[in-house]
């Protein structure tokens, strides 16, 4: 049995080894764990305990069935399912064939979701029964490659399936549980999954994630965030999230630890679950910690087994009180993107920091000067980018190298190129532009300031302003033009969506239909919280030009004279936003 220190060293060695191509993959790791720790619990899902041996057998059934359907290395299967063990069996099983799983984001709706499926060019789709209606609603807009199987994961239920859909559970019943021979042909340079992201501009994009990155992130969790084979983690993030898939699942596979899996996060059940399963490790996004902290204080708050919380986007002022109240040993802030270049982990737990430009002696990136309005990176007289000095804010760029690979956006070379900067400091170097503003501190520590470009973060998720305005414009009716941007809301993390709109002369908004429309087409975090009705824009796209000005004006009715509306969380409809409402937000009487 290795000590914690020995385990950390092992994981660090694995990370270093991943600089070169290795004959490792998710599939091979699962097979190894089944052999070495077959009886150890891999997943606990409500009352189901799934050991690594069970996990491997279940994954093999998926591999066997899809191989029998002619799927092979490089093919794609799209997946849309709530977080449950079958999701992970499917990804692991398909990975043994070298088949890529496109992890769809079911929170997006209609055209955007159909676009993601079409982008993946899948040969089959696995749909969780809970998303069957959603899928059927867009089925006519979907194109897949042959055999174009539509498979429903019924979760022990047997709903009557519409014509053209098959019950995957029945098809898997006869499949083999033996390890397939194909696993050996998959290595760290092969693609494991496609993740989808709003990116920093334009429409949603698919990002190929290599086995190398999945395993590297998992081993980094082992090396720097105190995850080890005794860890029991609570996992309630969506599995199609970078943090859910790469950090939580990647960490579990790299360390051979246990994951208590839930379909969704529930603040009310949080401590019951933590205590019941003796959970000592939890990965969260910023708002989750605030929700937990906002619960009524109890005398036994600190009486729990939780030791480590990994968080992306927690408000700095919350870390210490959170740690103290719940008796936690570690709250580690991390920073990352779905594109996944560079790793930033505040493992030294310096307050307010989200990481360091160095990780284990390896330089991850630089903070460089930029034009804050346009995002343009500034160069000196030698055409080199200008590095910020401590105390200054700039854009974080990450070096692309043999370990920090940027696979680009699937079939979108223009968007890929827009994220790259060449010859940054010397001829031939290549960096990935995060479009995130960071403040540089002494010792190369960095803290998150804001996001540049067309996207913003709200409720821990990236929102593409372009995509939101596209959906709003397609409401038609009175809307003539729209521009969307993120605004700071006092006391809240991230930026909330604000849509500035102009109306066609003489037209009025049907608010009832409008709210129904946005609810049908956008995930909750993307629905603009605020609307601002701007007078005639006097020309095409003028609103876009005014975006920076509007962004600076924020939400204060003292600055904004245009009629404003906000999405009342109680009435679930847009109502006029007044000085009184603004004061209620300032006084914490209205929370979003």
């Amino acid at each position, binding site marked *: 049995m290795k000590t914690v220190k020995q385990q950390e060293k092992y994981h660090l060695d694995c990370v270093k080894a991943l600089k070169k191509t290795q004959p490792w993959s998710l599939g091979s790791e699962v097979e190894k764990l089944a052999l070495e720790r077959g009886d150890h619990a891999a997943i606990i899902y409500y009352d189901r305990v799934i050991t690594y041996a069970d996990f491997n057998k279940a994954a093999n059934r998926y591999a066997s069935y899809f191989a029998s359907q002619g799927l092979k290395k490089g093919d794609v299967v799209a997946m849309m399912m709530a977080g449950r063990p079958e999701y992970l069996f499917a990804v692991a099983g398909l990975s043994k064939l070298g088949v890529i799983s496109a992890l769809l984001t079911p929170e997006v709706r209609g*055209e955007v979701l*159909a676009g993601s499926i*079409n982008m993946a060019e899948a040969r089959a789709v696995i749909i969780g029964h809970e998303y069957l209606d959603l899928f059927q609603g867009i089925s*006519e*807009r979907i*194109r897949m490659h042959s055999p174009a199987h539509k498979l429903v994961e019924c979760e022990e239920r047997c709903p009557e399936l519409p014509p053209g859909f098959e019950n995957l559970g029945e098809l898997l019943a006869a499949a083999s549980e033996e390890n397939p021979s194909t696993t050996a042909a998959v290595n760290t340079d092969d693609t494991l999954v496609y993740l989808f992201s709003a990116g920093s501009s334009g429409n949603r994009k698919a990002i190929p994630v290599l086995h190398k990155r999945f395993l590297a992130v998992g081993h980094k969790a082992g090396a720097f965030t105190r995850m080890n084979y005794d860890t029991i983690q609570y996992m309630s993030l969506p599995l199609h999230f970078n943090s859910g898939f790469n950090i939580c699942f990647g960490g579990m596979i790299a360390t051979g630890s246990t994951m208590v899996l839930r379909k969704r996060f529930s603040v009310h059940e949080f401590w019951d679950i933590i205590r019941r399963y003796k959970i000592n490790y939890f990965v969260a996004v910023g708002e989750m910690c605030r929700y937990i902290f906002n619960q009524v204080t109890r005398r036994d708050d600190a009486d729990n087994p939780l030791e480590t919380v990994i968080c992306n986007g927690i408000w700095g002022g919350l870390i210490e009180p959170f740690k103290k109240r719940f008796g936690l040993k570690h709250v580690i802030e991390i920073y990352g993107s779905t594109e996944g270049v560079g790793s930033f982990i505040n493992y030294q737990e310096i307050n307010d920091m989200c990481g360091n430009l160095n990780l284990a002696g390896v330089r991850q990136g630089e903070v460089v000067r930029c034009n804050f309005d346009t995002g343009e990176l500034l160069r000196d007289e030698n055409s080199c980018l200008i590095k910020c000095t401590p105390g200054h804010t700039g854009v974080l760029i990450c070096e692309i190298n043999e370990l920090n690979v940027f696979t680009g956006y699937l079939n979108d070379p223009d968007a890929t190129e827009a994220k790259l900067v060449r010859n940054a400091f010397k001829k031939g170097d290549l960096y990935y532009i995060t479009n995130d503003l960071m403040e540089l501190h002494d010792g190369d520590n960095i803290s998150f300031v804001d996001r540049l470009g067309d996207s913003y973060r709200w409720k821990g998720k990236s929102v593409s302003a372009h995509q939101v305005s596209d959906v709003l*414009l*397609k*409401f*038609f*009716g*009175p809307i003539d033009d729209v521009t969307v941007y993120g605004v700071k809301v006092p006391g809240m993390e991230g930026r909330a969506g604000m849509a500035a709109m102009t109306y*066609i*002369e*003489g*037209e*009025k908004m049907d608010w009832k239909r409008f709210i129904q*429309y946005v609810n049908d087409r956008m995930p909750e975090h993307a629905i603009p919280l605020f609307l601002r009705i701007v007078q005639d824009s006097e020309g*095409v*796209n003028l609103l876009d030009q005014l975006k920076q000005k509007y962004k600076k004006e924020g939400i204060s009715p003292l600055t904004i004279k245009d009629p404003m509306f906000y999405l009342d969380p109680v009435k679930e409809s847009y109502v006029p936003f007044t000085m009184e409402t603004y004061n209620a937000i300032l006084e914490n009487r209205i929370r979003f």
Partner: protein
Amino acid sequence: MNLSDFKKMDEYMEITHDYMLKVNPFYGDFLKAMRYFNVLDALNNPTAEWSTPNNVIYENQTLALRHFPNKRLNDAKRPVLILPPQAGHHSNLSDYSAAQSLVRVFHRYGYDVYITHWQSATQEYKDLGMNDYIRLTDEAVDKIRERTGVYKIHIVGQCQGGWQSAVYTSLHQEKIATLVTAAAPIDVFAAPSQIVDNAQLPMEFFEFLVSRNNGLMNGKFMLQGFKSMQAEEHYVRKYFRLWDWIQNNDEDAIKRFSYFENWYEYTQFLPGRFYLDIIKNIFKENNLTKHGAFSLDGVPVDMANITCPVIIMAGKKDHITPPAQAFALKNLVSTPPEDVVEILTDGGHIGTLMGTEALREDWTAVNEVLKLAI
């Protein structure tokens, strides 16, 4: 009278109204009745306008090809040509109002849009037939191909424009990337409808209607025919509704009523031969369902020549073209079944073509499917 006289008159009117309202409790209704007649009076001379800025880029005979440049977003690979209905109404149905325009929907999806504006026929064009309208459509398609450099374009036909675009595609498949038909009668015997029943009157009856206008078919006759299918609605109910709106001061509803009635009552002439060709080939003999049963300029018309992706729209409540009549196209074309998409809207006939809900929910779906076309 000079200006001060008018002012004085206004003052007197105001005093009179105030006085009358005091002494006669029913005087308020009189004012509303005046308003009612004023609204209807304003509809006596309907006018036709386009909502989206456009230019006529080609004209020949009854065709004016209008280009609606997409100023916001123009990233779609292929242009779209819309063929509006030809049932006695103005072609601006496809661009009904600024807020309710099919052109606007296609623009939002990045398409450059063209419309065949079929102008009212004059005596000179009374002998144009189906073959001529297909020839004019071909001229429009060629003009678009020539100015955009795109070899195959998307064609969208609404109602009568629907069968027209299907016939055109069957004769010129090499020029069409995707065929979209909306509320278009194809197999008129696939489901009963009053319009088809009416069309079974002797041919002499229709020839008589045409002869009454010296070889032209008056749109007013066709409008009367449509109205007769829902007589109570068109001659009674809608006037009650107007009266209710006036009583309740529902200015938005009154505005919508006036706008629609202005469009609905605006009619134009069709060439008599064209009208009679339609009655015979489509509504009497159901020839679109029979491969090569009739020819245009010597070429047999056969829907089986259509091989491109096809999108068929129909309205659940459409009493003019019941869904079965429209969806029948899928059984006639050679397009593989997976490339035929059927969209059933919740609306009726006009609702499917230009209703707010259909534009938002169904025409957007058409656009999303079109995006899949290579």
